């Protein structure tokens, strides 16, 4: 196997095993040697509502598609891997991915991949469901939320899954009561608190 093929495999492994989780999830990745004009990540089915990723040099406001397999190494350096970053199939720049960076990413503030079986959905979130979902559908909706919560937690970390869960519950509330009723309820509560 040639040196280039080894590097190619190495980069693919880094990207598949680590970046999918790490770079999408990480709110603050310290990677001074990485310079991306733009990056595209892709999930097959679900558009990512990713938190912004802040690199020291540049802020990437929006992440939509992921052609992770298109990030291929282009140099023969062994200590670090240079990958080509593509957006919509067009090359937009090179990124240097040192091996040590991948290890750093998996420390403290970045979620590691989690075993879905060990993820617990917050019970308090599910306690709202009897008020907003008809009894007939309650079990199915609760099961779906649990299943997806575990999947997201395993793929993108617990905090992302929590944000998704609360967002879904809020949308269920709006669907059940309507925005006007919710607004009137909040207004009444504020009036009561202010003694008006």
């Amino acid at each position, binding site marked *: 196997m040639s040196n280039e093929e080894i590097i190619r495999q190495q980069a693919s492994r880094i990207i598949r095993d680590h970046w999918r989780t790490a770079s999408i999830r990480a709110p603050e990745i310290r990677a001074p040697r990485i310079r991306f004009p733009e990056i595209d990540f892709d999930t097959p089915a679900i558009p990512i*509502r990713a938190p912004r990723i802040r690199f020291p040099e540049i802020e990437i406001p929006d992440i939509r598609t992921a052609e992770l397999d298109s990030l291929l190494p282009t140099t023969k350096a062994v200590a670090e891997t240079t990958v080509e970053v593509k957006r919509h199939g067009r090359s937009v720049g090179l990124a240097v991915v040192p091996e040590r960076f991948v290890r750093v990413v998996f420390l403290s503030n970045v979620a590691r991949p989690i075993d879905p*079986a060990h993820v617990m959905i917050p019970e308090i979130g599910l306690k709202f469901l009897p008020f907003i979902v008809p009894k007939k559908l309650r079990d*199915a*909706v609760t*099961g*779906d939320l649990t299943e*997806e919560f575990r999947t997201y937690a395993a793929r993108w970390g617990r905090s992302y899954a929590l944000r998704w869960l609360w967002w879904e519950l809020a*949308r*269920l509330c709006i669907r059940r009561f309507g925005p006007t009723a919710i607004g009137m309820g909040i207004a009444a509560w504020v009036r009561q608190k202010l003694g008006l």
Partner: protein
Amino acid sequence: MGRDTLGEFEQGVLLAILRLGPEAYGVPIRHDLSGRLGRAVSVGAIYTTLDRLETKGFVSSWIGGATAERGGRAKRFYRIEDPGHRALDAARAVTRSLWAGLPEGAPA
């Protein structure tokens, strides 16, 4: 929407059920629709639509077995019934007739 006509989202849900076959329950239906519509679809939107379609008689549902990955909650599977098939056929015929006379690939 009238009782026998389908909205765009309802069509999408029915077609997703058709594609998924016996594995059609909330989660895969939502993923299928999200992928095809190119936007996130909420759990509430799916179940509201499924409930409405069931009331219209277009789909029927049954409870599957409970699984550990769902916290011991059962899945509710859906299947298209004859009125649902007829409504889909009618919707397709309407779409075809609206596009009739325009060349393939004509700008929309």
